[in-house]
């Protein structure tokens, strides 16, 4: 558009830019600075420069290493459940049946409801003595269900299930958008050639949906690596540290244990981790699309 006003667009985005620098840019630089210090808010000691010591300490911190591995476990379980279920729901909602529009509209509920509140509702539903889940499982013959939130071996899958309840519908909605954009010709050709439902899914739907699934996977990976809300309210990272994610340990280390510098180092590692995983997924997506 008008050349003589070249400064104008800059001026229009200036307020937003200033805000972004103030609440995001500067804090991130400050975070890097803090990560090189021993820093405490409560004590009287001034922050002390320690170089990369905080980062070196991470490797020896069993709790951090465990949380890191656990976070990958959360992410893997989350992807393994969200993507197939989401695609399945999308394929289902793509079929014609009475009330389909209402079903599609209701799908948005779990992902917009306040996670902290819904996490607590799930705590009540999963209650080992009075919970509805125990009752329903009893109805299908499972009378000794595991202690969902207090068995160290079960707690991570339980939390992944609650997370999946919230976010699989989002994957489904993304897949529905992807499905509606697929070309129809290959499917018609396959029908003419007598391809079975499974063949059409395996050789047409799945490969054609790969780019869409990659987008969904990318979004889910970003959020699963940062999982904290429902863990905080449902288990607090327990029993012991059995469900402690990296983000939760990060919060506790920095703001509960007052190890600001060490927490900053964890935050930087977490940020780098999310970035690395996202970039890998973006790379993977490129040849497919």
């Amino acid at each position, binding site marked *: *558009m008008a050349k003589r006003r070249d400064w*104008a667009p*800059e001026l*229009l*985005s200036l*307020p*937003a*830019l200033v*805000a*972004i620098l*103030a*609440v*995001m840019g500067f*804090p*991130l630089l*400050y*975070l890097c600075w803090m990560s090189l210090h021993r*820093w405490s808010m409560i004590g009287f000691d001034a922050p002390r420069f320690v170089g990369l010591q905080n980062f070196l300490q991470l490797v020896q911190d069993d709790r951090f290493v465990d949380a890191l591995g656990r976070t990958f476990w959360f992410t893997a379980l989350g992807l393994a459940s969200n993507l197939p279920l989401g695609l399945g729901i999308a394929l*289902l909602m793509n*079929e*014609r049946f009475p009330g*389909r529009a209402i*079903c599609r*509209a*209701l799908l*948005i509920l779990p*992902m*917009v*409801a*306040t*996670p*902290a*509140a*819904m996490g*607590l*509702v799930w*705590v*009540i*539903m999963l209650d080992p003595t*009075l919970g509805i889940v125990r009752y329903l499982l*009893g109805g299908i013959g499972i009378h000794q269900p595991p202690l969902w939130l207090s068995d160290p071996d079960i707690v991570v899958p339980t939390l992944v299930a609650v997370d999946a309840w919230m976010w699989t519908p989002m994957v489904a909605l*993304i897949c529905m958008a992807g499905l509606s954009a697929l070309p129809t010709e290959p499917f018609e050709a396959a029908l003419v050639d007598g391809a079975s439902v499974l063949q059409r899914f395996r050789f047409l739907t799945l490969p054609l949906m790969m780019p869409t699934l990659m987008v969904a996977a990318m*979004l889910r990976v*970003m959020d699963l690596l*940062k*999982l*904290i*809300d429902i863990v*905080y*309210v449902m288990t607090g990272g327990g029993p012991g540290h059995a469900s402690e994610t990296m*983000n939760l340990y*990060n*919060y506790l280390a*920095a*703001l509960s244990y007052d190890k*600001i510098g060490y927490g900053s180092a964890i*935050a930087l590692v977490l940020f780098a981790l*999310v*970035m690395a995983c*996202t970039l890998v997924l973006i790379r993977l997506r490129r040849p497919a699309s």
Partner: protein
Amino acid sequence: MSPQRRRRLFFAIAGWGVTFVLVSPFLWMVMGSFKTTVDFLAYPPVFAFVPTLANYRQVLADNSFLHYTLNSTIVAAGSTGLGLLLGIPAAYALARYRRTGIGVVLLLARMAPGIAFLIPLFVMFLQLHLVGSFVSLIASHLIFTLPLTVWMMVGFIEAVPVEIEKAALIDGCSLVGVLLRIVVPLTVQGIAATGILAFIASWNNFLFALVLANESTKTLPVAVLGYIGYNSIQWGTLMAAATFITLPVLVLAFCVQRYIVRGLVAGAVTG
């Protein structure tokens, strides 16, 4: 029954079944909010009971709960309003003049864990004596409302035909005039949808309030934790409080269901 009809029946049952499973926690929550403590402690759980309003009465009689509701509203409205005010002009510049840098910033903001901003912001606000103030909460919520606004509004503004703006510019209208008199009126619906999504994101945010709020500025997601004590869970009141918190969000979300996914792509800072 023809195969065609049998097929439809099958998909209807499956589709409604899946939807029911996904919605059932909400049904159980609302149901529980009307139960007396006795009904709540019954096993097997009761599905038919005499509803009581006692839980809601208890939640609403609790002055601090209404206070937290007001806090949530102030923070969500403030960060949404500020997000729109700063974000719309930026989105306009981005949509019409192709400034690429912001796109990278948005992606970075989407990837960054909230804690990476929270730790330095906490220290900074502490030094400024602003921890526990609405200023700190609203400013920190900008971290997700602003990128969300820019991301959503770029799409809406790109859909406005550029010819009208060109004509107005030729007629001597200033760029700000074009923005206020043409772009904003033509994208009112988009602005409303964006505002609602930003409001929901802020309303639902837990971690930022957990760190930056104090007793008098606490927002609802943090306040609801108070109903789970160490030795006693007030089940009915918790369910009523959870219903009270999520209901506005669910209603708002229905108004903007077409845009939900686009909003979540940009701005779900979960931690």
